[in-house]
C-alpha cells in the first residue's frame, strides 16, 4: 500500500461568479521512501496541493490518505518546510527547533530532548549559530533551520513547499545537495514542490508536472533514472539529463500553450472616454483574510 494517496482531489476557492477552481481530478500515490517532485508554473496551485496534504486545507472532493487513513488536520507526522521559512523571530535557532521537539517528543527527558535538538542542528551545520535569532541569519541559514525543525519532528513524510525559491542561485545549489545528503541518511518519504525543473531532476526520483491552473491537474510522471548519490556536474553533461529536462519543459510549455488557446476569446472593450473625477473615490479595501487560530 502506498504511504500517501490522493484520490480524485479537487479544490476551489470563492463562490458564484468569483469561484476559482484551482485543482481538479488530482490523483497521486507516493510509496514509502520515495522522493517525488511536483513541478509547475507559479500560480498553478502547487501550494494549494501541499496545503491539502499537510492538512491546512481540505479538498472539496476526493480524499487524502496517509497510511490509508484520511487526513483530518495538520500534524507533526508531516513535516513542512515553508517557502518563507516561517521561523518564529523571537526565538533562537535552538528554541525554534525545540518548539517542535517539545511537541512531538513530550515523553523524552530534558537531556534527551537537548541531545535530539543538537543532533538535528548539527545535521544542518548550524551549531555555531545555535543561539542566534533568525534575523541574524542569512536566507540560506534560515531555511536550514526550517529543515532542521521539520526533520527533528521525525515525520513520516517531508513536505517542501518551494523551499529554495527565495534563495540566490549559489545558496540554492549547495542547499539542494545538503537536503539530499540529509534525506539520504534515513530515506524519508519526501514531496518537493518546485518551479525549477532542474531542481526536481537533481533531487527527486520521480517528477510529476502540474498543469497550469485553473483546473490544474497532474500530468504524466517522468522517472529520473540517475543513481544516487548524484553528481550535479556529471549529470549536466549527460545526454539523458538534457533530454529529460527538455521533455518535461516541453510538456509544461505545451499544456500551457493549449491552455492559452482555450481561453482565446475575443473581448470587446467598452467605448469610454476619460473624464475628470468629480470627487475622489477611495479604493475598496481588500477584505481581510480571516485568521483561524484553533
Amino acid at each position, binding site marked *: 500500500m502506498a504511504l500517501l494517496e490522493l484520490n480524485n482531489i479537487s479544490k476551489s476557492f470563492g463562490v458564484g461568479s468569483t469561484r476559482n477552481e484551482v485543482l481538479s481530478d488530482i490523483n497521486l500515490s507516493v510509496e514509502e521512501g520515495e522522493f517525488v517532485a511536483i513541478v509547475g508554473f507559479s500560480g498553478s496551485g502547487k501550494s494549494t496541493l501541499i496545503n491539502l496534504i*499537510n*492538512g*491546512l486545507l481540505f479538498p472539496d472532493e476526493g480524499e487524502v490518505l496517509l497510511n490509508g487513513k484520511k487526513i483530518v*488536520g*495538520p*500534524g*507533526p507526522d*508531516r*513535516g*513542512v518546510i*515553508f517557502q*518563507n521559512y*516561517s*521561523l*518564529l*523571530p*523571537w*526565538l533562537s535557532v535552538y528554541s525554534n527547533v525545540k*518548539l*517542535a521537539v517539545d*511537541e*512531538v517528543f513530550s515523553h523524552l527527558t530534558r537531556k534527551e530532548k537537548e541531545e535530539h535538538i543538537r543532533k538535528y542542528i548539527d545535521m544542518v551545520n548550524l551549531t555555531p549559530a545555535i543561539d542566534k*535569532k*533568525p*534575523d541574524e541569519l542569512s536566507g540560506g541559514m534560515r531555511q536550514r533551520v526550517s529543515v532542521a525543525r521539520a526533520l527533528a*519532528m521525525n515525520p513520516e513524510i517531508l513536505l517542501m513547499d518551494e523551499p529554495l525559491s527565495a534563495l540566490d542561485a549559489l545558496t540554492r545549489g549547495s542547499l539542494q545537495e545538503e537536503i539530499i545528503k540529509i534525506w539520504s541518511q534515513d530515506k524519508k518519504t519526501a514531496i518537493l514542490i518546485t518551479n525549477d525543473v532542474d531542481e526536481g531532476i537533481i533531487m527527486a526520483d520521480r517528477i510529476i508536472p502540474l498543469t497550469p491552473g485553473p483546473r490544474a491537474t497532474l500530468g504524466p510522471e517522468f522517472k529520473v533514472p540517475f543513481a544516487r548519490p548524484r553528481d550535479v556536474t556529471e549529470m549536466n553533461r549527460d545526454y539523458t539529463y538534457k533530454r529529460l529536462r527538455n521533455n518535461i519543459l516541453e510538456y509544461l510549455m505545451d499544456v500551457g500553450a493549449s491552455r492559452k488557446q482555450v481561453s482565446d476569446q475575443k473581448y470587446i472593450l467598452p467605448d469610454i472616454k476619460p473624464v475628470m473625477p468629480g470627487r475622489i473615490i477611495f479604493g475598496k479595501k481588500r477584505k481581510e*483574510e*480571516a*485568521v*483561524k*487560530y*484553533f
Partner: protein
Amino acid sequence: MKNKSIKTLKFLGLGFIEPLIRLISGEEPKKNTQLFIKKSLLPLSSIFLFVLIWHLGSAALYNSEAEVRIEKARSEQGEAAAIAMAECIASGDVSCQPNTLPSPTKVWGAFQALLDDHNTISQKKSDFKDKVAATNAQREAQGLDPITYTGRPSFVDQIGTSLKTVAAGCLLAMLIAVPIGIIIGLSESLRTSFNWLIQIFKPVSPVVWLLLVFMVVKTLITDPSLDKSFIISFISVGLCAMWATLVNTSMGVSTVDKDYINVARVLKLNVGQNIFKIILPASFPLIFTGLRITVSVAWMVLIAIELLAQSPGLGSFVWEEFQNGANDSNAKIIVAMFVIGAIGFMLDRIMLSVQNVMTFNKAAA
C-alpha cells in the same frame, strides 16, 4: 569598556552622548565633533533660545502689568499714589508686585525654595520620628497604631505620590486591558460585539471617569482607614489610560502573521501553548506600543484627576498653588510644569527601553 558604556547609554535612551564619548577617546574627531554639535549642542541651543524668549516675554508682561497698576493708582487716587506705586514696584515689595508670568530666574528661585522646603520638611520628619520613637515602641507593645507624621507633604513627596498613583493606574490598566485585549483579539465575533463599547468609552474625558469611579467607590468602600482619594484617582487614571493598550493588544493578536499560525497548526500546539508561545510573543510589539501610550496618557490625565480628587500629588500641588495666590505661586506652578514634563519624558524613555528588550525585529522575520 567604551563600547559597553555606549551600548548602555543607548539602551537608556541617552544615545546623544555617544559622539562626546567617542570624541573624548579620540575617535574620528571631525565626524564626531559634527555629530556632537548636531545631537547635543543644537538641542541645548534651542532650549537656550526658549529661555531667552521666555525671559523677554515675561519682562514685557511684567512691565505692562506694572504700567496698568500705576495708571490705575493715578486715575483712582491721583498723582501721588501713582508715584508711590511706582516706587513700591521698583523696591520689589511683595505687597504690590505685578502678578503675571514669572521670569526664568524667578522660576529657578522657586525651584530652589521648593527643594529647601523639602529639606526642612524631611528634617522635621526625622526629628519627629526620633521624638516619638520611644512612644511608638510603647504603643506597639500595647497593640496600638504608631503615631505618624501628619504635617504638610513637600514637593518631592508629592512627586512620589503622583508616581505611585500612575504606577498603580498603569498596573491596573495593564491587568485589565492585556487579558481582555487578548480574548477579544482571538475571536472576531467578540471583537465586533465589543467594538462599539470600546469606541464609545475611549474618548470619554478623564473628569467624567473620575466622577463615575467616585460614584462607585464611594458606595463600595466605607472603611475610613483606606485612602479613598488615592483609590479613586488611581482607578480613574487606569480607566482613562487602558484603552490604547486594549485596542493595540486586540489588534496585535488578531493580526498575527499567518505563517506563525500555520507553524502552530502544523505542530498541533494546544490552546495555551498557542497563546503563550506564538500569539503573545508575535503581538508583543503592538502590546508594548499600547502600554507606552498608556503610560504617557496616564501621566497626562493624572494632573487633572488629582486636582479634582483632592488626592495629594502634583495635580493638587498645582491647584493649591493656584488657589493660594502667594507671590511665588505662579513660579511654583511653572516649576511643577517642567517637572511634569521631564518625568513624562523619562517614563516614555523607560517604556521605550522595555519595549526594545521585549520585542523582536519584525523586519527580518
